Protein backbone atom coordinates (compact mmCIF):
# COMPACT_ATOMS: atom_id res chain seq x y z
CA UNK A 1 0.00 0.00 0.00
CA UNK A 2 1.02 3.60 -0.65
CA UNK A 3 2.80 4.69 2.56
CA UNK A 4 1.68 8.31 2.27
CA UNK A 5 -1.99 7.35 2.13
CA UNK A 6 -1.41 4.98 4.99
CA UNK A 7 -0.01 7.79 7.06
CA UNK A 8 -2.94 10.08 6.26
CA UNK A 9 -5.36 7.39 7.31
CA UNK A 10 -3.48 6.63 10.52
CA UNK A 11 -3.31 10.33 11.44
CA UNK A 12 -6.96 10.72 10.56
CA UNK A 13 -7.89 7.86 12.88
CA UNK A 14 -5.82 9.38 15.68
CA UNK A 15 -7.48 12.72 15.15
CA UNK A 16 -10.97 11.26 15.01
CA UNK A 17 -10.40 9.20 18.16
CA UNK A 18 -9.05 12.23 20.04
CA UNK A 19 -11.96 14.29 18.70
CA UNK A 20 -14.48 11.77 20.02
CA UNK A 21 -12.78 11.77 23.42
CA UNK A 22 -12.97 15.56 23.41
CA UNK A 23 -16.65 15.28 22.55
CA UNK A 24 -17.31 12.94 25.51
CA UNK A 25 -15.61 15.45 27.78
CA UNK A 26 -17.10 18.58 26.22
CA UNK A 27 -20.68 17.33 25.97
CA UNK A 28 -20.95 16.97 29.75
CA UNK A 29 -19.50 20.43 30.20
CA UNK A 30 -21.83 22.02 27.67
CA UNK A 31 -24.95 20.19 28.93
CA UNK A 32 -24.30 21.20 32.52
CA UNK A 33 -23.66 24.77 31.46
CA UNK A 34 -26.72 24.88 29.24
CA UNK A 35 -29.04 23.57 31.93
CA UNK A 36 -27.68 24.97 35.11
CA UNK A 37 -25.68 27.95 33.90
CA UNK A 38 -22.72 26.51 35.77
CA UNK A 39 -19.30 26.42 34.21
CA UNK A 40 -18.06 23.34 36.04
CA UNK A 41 -14.35 24.00 36.37
CA UNK A 42 -13.94 20.61 38.06
CA UNK A 43 -15.14 18.78 34.97
CA UNK A 44 -11.71 18.07 33.51
CA UNK A 45 -10.51 17.09 36.97
CA UNK A 46 -13.16 14.37 37.05
CA UNK A 47 -11.82 13.23 33.70
CA UNK A 48 -8.31 12.96 35.17
CA UNK A 49 -9.61 11.26 38.31
CA UNK A 50 -11.31 8.62 36.20
CA UNK A 51 -8.03 7.93 34.40
CA UNK A 52 -6.42 7.28 37.81
CA UNK A 53 -9.34 5.11 38.90
CA UNK A 54 -8.88 3.17 35.67
CA UNK A 55 -5.19 2.68 36.49
CA UNK A 56 -6.09 1.52 40.00
CA UNK A 57 -8.79 -0.93 38.96
CA UNK A 58 -6.39 -2.48 36.47
CA UNK A 59 -3.70 -2.65 39.18
CA UNK A 60 -6.15 -4.54 41.41
CA UNK A 61 -7.97 -6.75 38.92
CA UNK A 62 -5.83 -6.74 35.78
CA UNK A 63 -8.92 -6.04 33.70
CA UNK A 64 -9.21 -3.01 31.42
CA UNK A 65 -12.85 -3.89 30.77
CA UNK A 66 -13.67 -3.79 34.44
CA UNK A 67 -11.87 -0.44 34.66
CA UNK A 68 -13.91 0.88 31.73
CA UNK A 69 -17.06 -0.12 33.57
CA UNK A 70 -16.20 0.93 37.12
CA UNK A 71 -14.07 4.09 36.84
CA UNK A 72 -16.69 6.21 35.01
CA UNK A 73 -19.47 5.03 37.33
CA UNK A 74 -17.49 5.95 40.45
CA UNK A 75 -16.63 9.28 38.83
CA UNK A 76 -20.30 9.88 38.01
CA UNK A 77 -21.31 9.09 41.59
CA UNK A 78 -18.77 11.58 42.92
CA UNK A 79 -20.23 14.12 40.48
CA UNK A 80 -23.76 13.46 41.78
CA UNK A 81 -22.58 13.87 45.38
CA UNK A 82 -20.86 17.15 44.48
CA UNK A 83 -24.06 18.45 42.90
CA UNK A 84 -26.41 17.25 45.61
CA UNK A 85 -24.46 18.18 48.72
CA UNK A 86 -22.24 21.11 47.70
CA UNK A 87 -23.35 22.87 44.52
CA UNK A 88 -27.01 22.92 45.49
CA UNK A 89 -26.07 24.53 48.81
CA UNK A 90 -24.22 27.43 47.21
CA UNK A 91 -26.74 27.92 44.41
CA UNK A 92 -28.49 30.65 46.38
CA UNK A 93 -25.29 32.72 46.37
CA UNK A 94 -25.17 32.91 42.58
CA UNK A 95 -22.83 31.72 39.89
CA UNK A 96 -19.68 33.15 41.42
CA UNK A 97 -20.15 30.91 44.45
CA UNK A 98 -20.67 27.88 42.20
CA UNK A 99 -17.61 28.76 40.14
CA UNK A 100 -15.40 29.11 43.20
CA UNK A 101 -16.75 25.86 44.63
CA UNK A 102 -15.89 23.90 41.49
CA UNK A 103 -12.39 25.37 41.51
CA UNK A 104 -12.02 24.32 45.16
CA UNK A 105 -13.25 20.79 44.48
CA UNK A 106 -10.92 20.58 41.53
CA UNK A 107 -7.90 21.53 43.69
CA UNK A 108 -8.87 19.03 46.38
CA UNK A 109 -9.11 16.21 43.84
CA UNK A 110 -5.85 17.22 42.16
CA UNK A 111 -3.91 17.29 45.44
CA UNK A 112 -5.49 14.02 46.64
CA UNK A 113 -4.51 12.35 43.39
CA UNK A 114 -0.91 13.48 43.91
CA UNK A 115 -0.94 12.15 47.49
CA UNK A 116 -2.33 8.75 46.48
CA UNK A 117 -0.55 8.15 43.19
CA UNK A 118 2.35 10.60 43.08
CA UNK A 119 3.20 12.81 40.13
CA UNK A 120 4.91 10.22 37.89
CA UNK A 121 3.09 9.32 34.73
CA UNK A 122 1.54 5.86 35.04
CA UNK A 123 1.12 3.50 32.08
CA UNK A 124 -2.17 1.75 31.28
CA UNK A 125 -2.06 -1.44 29.21
CA UNK A 126 -4.85 -2.15 26.79
CA UNK A 127 -6.03 -5.75 26.42
CA UNK A 128 -4.57 -7.82 23.59
CA UNK A 129 -7.72 -7.76 21.47
CA UNK A 130 -7.50 -3.97 21.26
CA UNK A 131 -3.84 -3.91 20.26
CA UNK A 132 -2.46 -3.85 16.75
CA UNK A 133 -4.08 -3.07 13.45
CA UNK A 134 -6.87 -4.36 11.26
CA UNK A 135 -6.47 -4.26 7.51
CA UNK A 136 -9.35 -3.36 5.23
CA UNK A 137 -9.24 -2.25 1.61
CA UNK A 138 -5.46 -2.34 1.68
CA UNK A 139 -5.25 0.15 4.59
CA UNK A 140 -4.31 -0.49 8.22
CA UNK A 141 -6.45 0.86 11.02
CA UNK A 142 -5.31 0.92 14.66
CA UNK A 143 -7.84 -1.19 16.60
CA UNK A 144 -7.81 0.82 19.82
CA UNK A 145 -8.64 4.04 17.91
CA UNK A 146 -11.49 2.26 16.12
CA UNK A 147 -12.72 1.01 19.47
CA UNK A 148 -12.72 4.53 20.96
CA UNK A 149 -14.56 5.92 17.96
CA UNK A 150 -17.13 3.10 18.09
CA UNK A 151 -17.67 3.41 21.83
CA UNK A 152 -18.12 7.17 21.60
CA UNK A 153 -20.55 6.78 18.71
CA UNK A 154 -22.64 4.33 20.74
CA UNK A 155 -22.73 6.76 23.66
CA UNK A 156 -23.57 9.63 21.30
CA UNK A 157 -26.44 7.69 19.72
CA UNK A 158 -27.88 6.60 23.07
CA UNK A 159 -27.59 10.18 24.32
CA UNK A 160 -29.39 11.51 21.23
CA UNK A 161 -32.13 8.88 21.54
CA UNK A 162 -32.70 9.83 25.17
CA UNK A 163 -32.61 13.55 24.39
CA UNK A 164 -34.89 13.46 21.37
CA UNK A 165 -37.12 10.42 21.90
CA UNK A 166 -37.95 10.37 25.60
CA UNK A 167 -39.88 12.60 27.93
CA UNK A 168 -36.80 12.96 30.11
CA UNK A 169 -34.87 14.24 27.10
CA UNK A 170 -37.62 16.70 26.28
CA UNK A 171 -37.51 17.99 29.85
CA UNK A 172 -33.72 18.40 29.65
CA UNK A 173 -33.95 20.29 26.36
CA UNK A 174 -36.66 22.55 27.76
CA UNK A 175 -34.65 23.15 30.93
CA UNK A 176 -31.64 24.17 28.83
CA UNK A 177 -33.69 27.11 27.55
CA UNK A 178 -35.69 27.95 30.72
CA UNK A 179 -35.19 25.85 33.86
CA UNK A 180 -37.41 27.96 36.13
CA UNK A 181 -40.32 27.66 33.72
CA UNK A 182 -39.95 23.87 33.62
CA UNK A 183 -39.97 23.80 37.41
CA UNK A 184 -43.09 25.99 37.49
CA UNK A 185 -44.84 23.41 35.28
CA UNK A 186 -44.53 20.82 38.03
CA UNK A 187 -41.31 19.05 37.09
CA UNK A 188 -38.70 18.41 39.75
CA UNK A 189 -35.87 20.30 38.05
CA UNK A 190 -33.30 19.88 40.86
CA UNK A 191 -33.63 16.11 40.43
CA UNK A 192 -33.14 16.43 36.67
CA UNK A 193 -30.09 18.66 37.30
CA UNK A 194 -28.56 16.00 39.53
CA UNK A 195 -29.13 13.35 36.89
CA UNK A 196 -27.62 15.47 34.12
CA UNK A 197 -24.66 16.27 36.33
CA UNK A 198 -24.17 12.56 36.99
CA UNK A 199 -24.39 11.61 33.30
CA UNK A 200 -22.08 14.49 32.36
CA UNK A 201 -19.39 13.46 34.83
CA UNK A 202 -19.88 9.80 33.84
CA UNK A 203 -19.08 10.75 30.25
CA UNK A 204 -16.02 12.69 31.42
CA UNK A 205 -15.10 9.46 33.21
CA UNK A 206 -15.43 7.37 30.05
CA UNK A 207 -13.23 9.91 28.26
CA UNK A 208 -10.67 9.60 31.06
CA UNK A 209 -10.48 5.82 30.70
CA UNK A 210 -10.30 6.12 26.92
CA UNK A 211 -7.38 8.56 27.02
CA UNK A 212 -5.38 6.70 29.69
CA UNK A 213 -3.70 4.14 27.37
CA UNK A 214 -2.94 6.86 24.80
CA UNK A 215 -1.42 9.62 26.93
CA UNK A 216 -0.66 7.64 30.15
CA UNK A 217 -2.03 8.85 33.50
CA UNK A 218 -0.58 11.99 35.14
CA UNK A 219 -1.92 15.00 37.08
CA UNK A 220 -1.46 17.37 34.12
CA UNK A 221 -4.06 15.45 32.08
CA UNK A 222 -6.81 17.71 33.37
CA UNK A 223 -5.13 20.88 32.12
CA UNK A 224 -3.89 19.46 28.85
CA UNK A 225 -7.10 17.88 27.58
CA UNK A 226 -9.40 20.09 29.66
CA UNK A 227 -8.24 23.19 27.81
CA UNK A 228 -9.04 21.55 24.47
CA UNK A 229 -12.49 20.54 25.74
CA UNK A 230 -13.11 24.07 26.95
CA UNK A 231 -12.26 25.42 23.49
CA UNK A 232 -14.68 22.90 21.99
CA UNK A 233 -17.49 24.18 24.24
CA UNK A 234 -16.72 27.84 23.52
CA UNK A 235 -16.41 27.40 19.76
CA UNK A 236 -19.35 25.00 19.49
CA UNK A 237 -21.51 27.36 21.52
CA UNK A 238 -22.35 26.96 25.21
CA UNK A 239 -25.19 24.48 25.65
CA UNK A 240 -25.03 23.06 22.12
CA UNK A 241 -24.39 19.31 21.83
CA UNK A 242 -24.31 19.36 18.03
CA UNK A 243 -21.81 22.20 18.13
CA UNK A 244 -19.64 20.27 20.59
CA UNK A 245 -19.63 17.20 18.34
CA UNK A 246 -18.71 19.10 15.18
CA UNK A 247 -16.01 21.22 16.81
CA UNK A 248 -14.57 18.28 18.77
CA UNK A 249 -14.01 16.36 15.53
CA UNK A 250 -12.53 19.42 13.79
CA UNK A 251 -10.20 19.98 16.75
CA UNK A 252 -9.16 16.33 16.84
CA UNK A 253 -8.29 16.41 13.15
CA UNK A 254 -6.57 19.81 13.41
CA UNK A 255 -4.53 18.35 16.21
CA UNK A 256 -3.29 15.27 14.37
CA UNK A 257 -2.90 16.69 10.84
CA UNK A 258 -1.42 19.85 12.33
CA UNK A 259 1.42 17.83 13.82
CA UNK A 260 1.99 16.30 10.41
CA UNK A 261 1.90 19.39 8.19
CA UNK A 262 2.71 22.44 10.28
CA UNK A 263 4.37 20.94 13.33
CA UNK A 264 5.65 24.29 14.67
CA UNK A 265 2.11 25.71 14.57
CA UNK A 266 0.37 22.58 15.87
CA UNK A 267 0.10 23.62 19.53
CA UNK A 268 -1.62 26.91 18.69
CA UNK A 269 -3.81 25.74 15.80
CA UNK A 270 -6.82 25.22 18.08
CA UNK A 271 -6.45 28.73 19.48
CA UNK A 272 -6.21 30.20 15.99
CA UNK A 273 -9.33 28.27 15.01
CA UNK A 274 -11.13 29.54 18.12
CA UNK A 275 -10.12 33.15 17.45
CA UNK A 276 -11.32 33.01 13.85
CA UNK A 277 -14.71 31.53 14.78
CA UNK A 278 -15.27 33.94 17.67
CA UNK A 279 -14.51 36.97 15.51
CA UNK A 280 -17.44 36.05 13.26
CA UNK A 281 -19.66 34.30 15.81
CA UNK A 282 -18.98 35.57 19.33
CA UNK A 283 -21.55 33.12 20.78
CA UNK A 284 -19.82 30.17 19.11
CA UNK A 285 -21.09 28.28 16.09
CA UNK A 286 -24.41 27.17 17.60
CA UNK A 287 -24.56 29.27 20.76
CA UNK A 288 -27.63 31.26 21.67
CA UNK A 289 -26.99 32.74 25.07
CA UNK A 290 -24.31 34.92 26.56
Amino acid at each position, binding site marked *: MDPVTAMYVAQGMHGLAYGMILFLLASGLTLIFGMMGILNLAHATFFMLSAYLCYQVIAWTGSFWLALLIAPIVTGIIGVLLERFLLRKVHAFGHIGELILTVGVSLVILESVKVFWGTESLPVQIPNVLQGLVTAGGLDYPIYRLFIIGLSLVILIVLMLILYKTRLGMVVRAAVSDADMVDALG*INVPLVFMLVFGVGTWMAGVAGVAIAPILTVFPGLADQVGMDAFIVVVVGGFGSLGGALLVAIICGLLNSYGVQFVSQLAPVLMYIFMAIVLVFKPMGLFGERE
Partner: protein
Amino acid sequence: MLLEATNLNTYYGESHALQDMSLNVEDGEVVALLGRNGMGKSTTMKTIMGLLKPRSGKVIFDGRDITGQRPHKVARAGIGYVPEERRIFPNLSVLDNLMMGVKGGKVDTSNANIWTIEKIFERFPFMRDRTNQKGALLSGGEQQMLTIGRTLMGNPRLLMVDEPTEGLSPVMVKEVRDVLAAICKSGISILLVEHNLKVAMSLADRVYLMGKAHLGFTGTIAELDANPEARAKYLEV
Protein backbone atom coordinates in the same frame (compact mmCIF):
# COMPACT_ATOMS: atom_id res chain seq x y z
CA MET B 1 -60.94 29.78 50.28
CA LEU B 2 -58.78 28.39 47.46
CA LEU B 3 -55.79 30.73 47.69
CA GLU B 4 -54.93 32.79 50.71
CA ALA B 5 -51.77 34.91 50.58
CA THR B 6 -51.17 36.87 53.75
CA ASN B 7 -48.67 39.64 54.56
CA LEU B 8 -46.06 38.62 52.01
CA ASN B 9 -42.72 40.40 52.23
CA THR B 10 -40.41 39.75 49.31
CA TYR B 11 -37.04 41.33 48.57
CA TYR B 12 -34.77 41.67 45.57
CA GLY B 13 -31.49 41.92 47.44
CA GLU B 14 -32.16 44.85 49.77
CA SER B 15 -35.04 46.28 47.74
CA HIS B 16 -38.34 45.59 49.51
CA ALA B 17 -40.54 44.65 46.53
CA LEU B 18 -43.58 43.35 48.43
CA GLN B 19 -44.62 44.94 51.71
CA ASP B 20 -47.29 43.00 53.59
CA MET B 21 -49.04 42.08 50.36
CA SER B 22 -52.20 40.00 50.85
CA LEU B 23 -54.82 38.61 48.50
CA ASN B 24 -57.40 35.81 48.33
CA VAL B 25 -59.05 33.84 45.56
CA GLU B 26 -62.23 31.86 46.16
CA ASP B 27 -63.08 28.68 44.31
CA GLY B 28 -64.44 29.49 40.84
CA GLU B 29 -63.59 33.18 41.05
CA VAL B 30 -61.75 35.43 38.60
CA VAL B 31 -59.68 37.97 40.51
CA ALA B 32 -57.81 40.79 38.79
CA LEU B 33 -54.60 42.18 40.24
CA LEU B 34 -54.09 45.63 38.76
CA GLY B 35 -51.74 48.56 39.08
CA ARG B 36 -49.17 50.59 37.20
CA ASN B 37 -45.88 49.19 35.98
CA GLY B 38 -43.32 48.20 38.58
CA MET B 39 -45.74 48.05 41.52
CA GLY B 40 -45.10 44.37 42.25
CA LYS B 41 -47.84 42.43 40.48
CA SER B 42 -45.49 39.96 38.82
CA THR B 43 -43.49 39.73 42.03
CA THR B 44 -46.67 38.75 43.87
CA MET B 45 -47.31 35.93 41.39
CA LYS B 46 -43.71 34.74 41.49
CA THR B 47 -43.79 34.69 45.27
CA ILE B 48 -47.00 32.63 45.30
CA MET B 49 -45.48 30.31 42.68
CA GLY B 50 -42.33 29.73 44.72
CA LEU B 51 -40.05 31.35 42.15
CA LEU B 52 -39.22 33.93 44.82
CA LYS B 53 -39.03 33.16 48.52
CA PRO B 54 -40.79 35.63 50.82
CA ARG B 55 -38.92 36.65 53.98
CA SER B 56 -42.19 36.50 55.84
CA GLY B 57 -45.86 35.89 55.20
CA LYS B 58 -47.92 32.86 54.33
CA VAL B 59 -49.34 31.26 51.21
CA ILE B 60 -52.13 28.77 51.87
CA PHE B 61 -53.56 26.88 48.92
CA ASP B 62 -56.53 24.57 49.32
CA GLY B 63 -55.85 24.45 53.06
CA ARG B 64 -52.17 23.56 52.64
CA ASP B 65 -49.27 25.79 53.60
CA ILE B 66 -47.13 26.13 50.45
CA THR B 67 -45.09 29.15 51.54
CA GLY B 68 -41.61 29.10 50.01
CA GLN B 69 -42.05 25.66 48.45
CA ARG B 70 -40.19 24.85 45.23
CA PRO B 71 -42.20 25.84 42.11
CA HIS B 72 -42.78 22.21 41.07
CA LYS B 73 -44.39 21.49 44.45
CA VAL B 74 -46.61 24.54 44.09
CA ALA B 75 -47.56 23.48 40.55
CA ARG B 76 -48.35 20.00 41.78
CA ALA B 77 -50.50 21.45 44.54
CA GLY B 78 -52.69 22.80 41.71
CA ILE B 79 -51.49 26.27 40.73
CA GLY B 80 -50.78 26.91 37.05
CA TYR B 81 -48.58 29.84 36.04
CA VAL B 82 -48.67 31.66 32.72
CA PRO B 83 -45.81 34.16 33.00
CA GLU B 84 -45.19 37.52 31.40
CA GLU B 85 -43.29 37.29 28.12
CA ARG B 86 -44.95 33.89 27.56
CA ARG B 87 -41.76 31.86 27.99
CA ILE B 88 -42.61 29.04 25.63
CA PHE B 89 -39.77 26.62 24.88
CA PRO B 90 -38.59 27.96 21.51
CA ASN B 91 -36.54 24.89 20.57
CA LEU B 92 -39.38 22.44 21.29
CA SER B 93 -42.24 21.62 18.92
CA VAL B 94 -45.75 22.86 19.60
CA LEU B 95 -46.79 19.36 20.72
CA ASP B 96 -43.78 19.00 23.03
CA ASN B 97 -44.48 22.42 24.51
CA LEU B 98 -47.97 21.18 25.39
CA MET B 99 -46.66 17.87 26.72
CA MET B 100 -44.28 19.75 29.03
CA GLY B 101 -47.39 20.90 30.90
CA VAL B 102 -48.44 17.36 31.81
CA LYS B 103 -47.63 16.81 35.44
CA GLY B 104 -48.00 13.06 35.54
CA GLY B 105 -49.63 11.42 38.49
CA LYS B 106 -53.36 11.04 38.77
CA VAL B 107 -55.76 12.78 36.42
CA ASP B 108 -59.44 12.56 37.22
CA THR B 109 -60.64 11.24 33.84
CA SER B 110 -64.23 10.98 35.05
CA ASN B 111 -64.36 14.77 35.23
CA ALA B 112 -65.88 16.04 31.98
CA ASN B 113 -64.13 19.39 32.48
CA ILE B 114 -60.64 17.93 32.39
CA TRP B 115 -58.28 19.48 29.81
CA THR B 116 -56.83 16.95 27.40
CA ILE B 117 -54.74 17.38 24.27
CA GLU B 118 -57.91 16.84 22.20
CA LYS B 119 -59.72 19.61 24.03
CA ILE B 120 -56.75 21.93 23.63
CA PHE B 121 -56.75 21.25 19.88
CA GLU B 122 -60.49 21.90 19.76
CA ARG B 123 -60.02 25.21 21.53
CA PHE B 124 -56.87 26.20 19.58
CA PRO B 125 -57.24 24.56 16.13
CA PHE B 126 -54.03 26.14 14.77
CA MET B 127 -52.01 23.93 17.13
CA ARG B 128 -53.36 20.72 15.61
CA ASP B 129 -52.10 21.79 12.18
CA ARG B 130 -48.68 22.76 13.46
CA THR B 131 -47.84 20.14 16.08
CA ASN B 132 -44.32 19.61 14.72
CA GLN B 133 -43.43 23.25 14.23
CA LYS B 134 -40.92 24.81 16.61
CA GLY B 135 -42.46 27.10 19.22
CA ALA B 136 -40.15 29.91 18.13
CA LEU B 137 -41.92 30.13 14.75
CA LEU B 138 -45.33 31.02 16.22
CA SER B 139 -46.64 34.59 16.27
CA GLY B 140 -46.92 36.44 19.59
CA GLY B 141 -50.62 35.67 19.92
CA GLU B 142 -50.10 32.02 19.07
CA GLN B 143 -47.29 31.81 21.61
CA GLN B 144 -49.63 33.25 24.23
CA MET B 145 -52.22 30.57 23.40
CA LEU B 146 -49.50 27.95 23.59
CA THR B 147 -48.41 29.00 27.10
CA ILE B 148 -52.00 28.96 28.25
CA GLY B 149 -52.59 25.56 26.61
CA ARG B 150 -49.38 24.22 28.12
CA THR B 151 -50.47 25.20 31.62
CA LEU B 152 -53.98 23.82 31.07
CA MET B 153 -52.44 20.41 30.24
CA GLY B 154 -51.49 20.27 33.94
CA ASN B 155 -55.13 20.77 34.92
CA PRO B 156 -54.57 23.40 37.59
CA ARG B 157 -57.30 24.47 39.98
CA LEU B 158 -56.04 28.03 39.94
CA LEU B 159 -54.51 29.72 36.90
CA MET B 160 -52.26 32.75 37.45
CA VAL B 161 -51.97 34.71 34.19
CA ASP B 162 -49.56 37.63 33.93
CA GLU B 163 -50.37 40.24 31.23
CA PRO B 164 -51.66 37.81 28.60
CA THR B 165 -52.74 40.50 26.09
CA GLU B 166 -49.50 42.50 26.22
CA GLY B 167 -48.42 43.42 22.69
CA LEU B 168 -51.24 41.58 20.91
CA SER B 169 -53.49 42.80 18.09
CA PRO B 170 -57.12 43.68 18.99
CA VAL B 171 -58.35 40.44 17.38
CA MET B 172 -55.93 38.41 19.46
CA VAL B 173 -56.80 40.35 22.61
CA LYS B 174 -60.43 39.33 22.16
CA GLU B 175 -59.38 35.74 21.50
CA VAL B 176 -57.34 35.63 24.71
CA ARG B 177 -60.23 37.15 26.63
CA ASP B 178 -62.62 34.50 25.31
CA VAL B 179 -60.19 31.72 26.14
CA LEU B 180 -59.87 32.95 29.73
CA ALA B 181 -63.67 33.13 29.99
CA ALA B 182 -63.93 29.54 28.76
CA ILE B 183 -61.27 28.40 31.22
CA CYS B 184 -63.19 29.99 34.05
CA LYS B 185 -66.35 28.26 32.87
CA SER B 186 -64.54 24.92 32.97
CA GLY B 187 -64.23 25.41 36.73
CA ILE B 188 -60.72 26.84 37.04
CA SER B 189 -60.22 29.92 39.20
CA ILE B 190 -58.12 32.71 37.74
CA LEU B 191 -55.80 35.33 39.18
CA LEU B 192 -55.23 37.81 36.37
CA VAL B 193 -52.74 40.62 35.95
CA GLU B 194 -53.87 42.71 33.00
CA HIS B 195 -53.15 46.20 31.71
CA ASN B 196 -56.17 46.26 29.44
CA LEU B 197 -58.79 47.49 31.91
CA LYS B 198 -61.71 46.57 29.66
CA VAL B 199 -60.55 42.97 29.44
CA ALA B 200 -59.91 42.77 33.17
CA MET B 201 -63.29 44.26 34.07
CA SER B 202 -65.18 42.00 31.68
CA LEU B 203 -63.72 38.90 33.33
CA ALA B 204 -63.15 39.68 37.00
CA ASP B 205 -65.45 39.26 39.96
CA ARG B 206 -63.16 41.20 42.28
CA VAL B 207 -60.06 43.37 41.97
CA TYR B 208 -56.97 44.17 43.97
CA LEU B 209 -55.15 47.40 43.13
CA MET B 210 -51.49 47.68 44.00
CA GLY B 211 -49.56 50.80 44.94
CA LYS B 212 -45.78 50.66 45.15
CA ALA B 213 -45.05 47.24 46.70
CA HIS B 214 -48.28 47.17 48.71
CA LEU B 215 -52.01 46.59 48.47
CA GLY B 216 -53.93 49.82 47.77
CA PHE B 217 -57.56 48.92 47.26
CA THR B 218 -59.67 45.80 47.13
CA GLY B 219 -63.32 45.29 46.27
CA THR B 220 -65.82 44.03 43.74
CA ILE B 221 -66.05 45.47 40.24
CA ALA B 222 -69.09 47.46 41.32
CA GLU B 223 -67.20 48.89 44.28
CA LEU B 224 -64.33 49.92 42.03
CA ASP B 225 -66.79 51.56 39.63
CA ALA B 226 -68.20 53.57 42.51
CA ASN B 227 -64.74 54.70 43.65
CA PRO B 228 -63.13 57.15 41.23
CA GLU B 229 -60.45 58.15 43.80
CA ALA B 230 -59.08 54.61 43.91
CA ARG B 231 -59.07 54.43 40.12
CA ALA B 232 -57.27 57.78 39.90
CA LYS B 233 -54.75 56.84 42.56
CA TYR B 234 -53.81 53.36 41.38
CA LEU B 235 -54.78 53.02 37.72
CA GLU B 236 -54.95 56.18 35.68
CA VAL B 237 -51.67 57.46 34.34
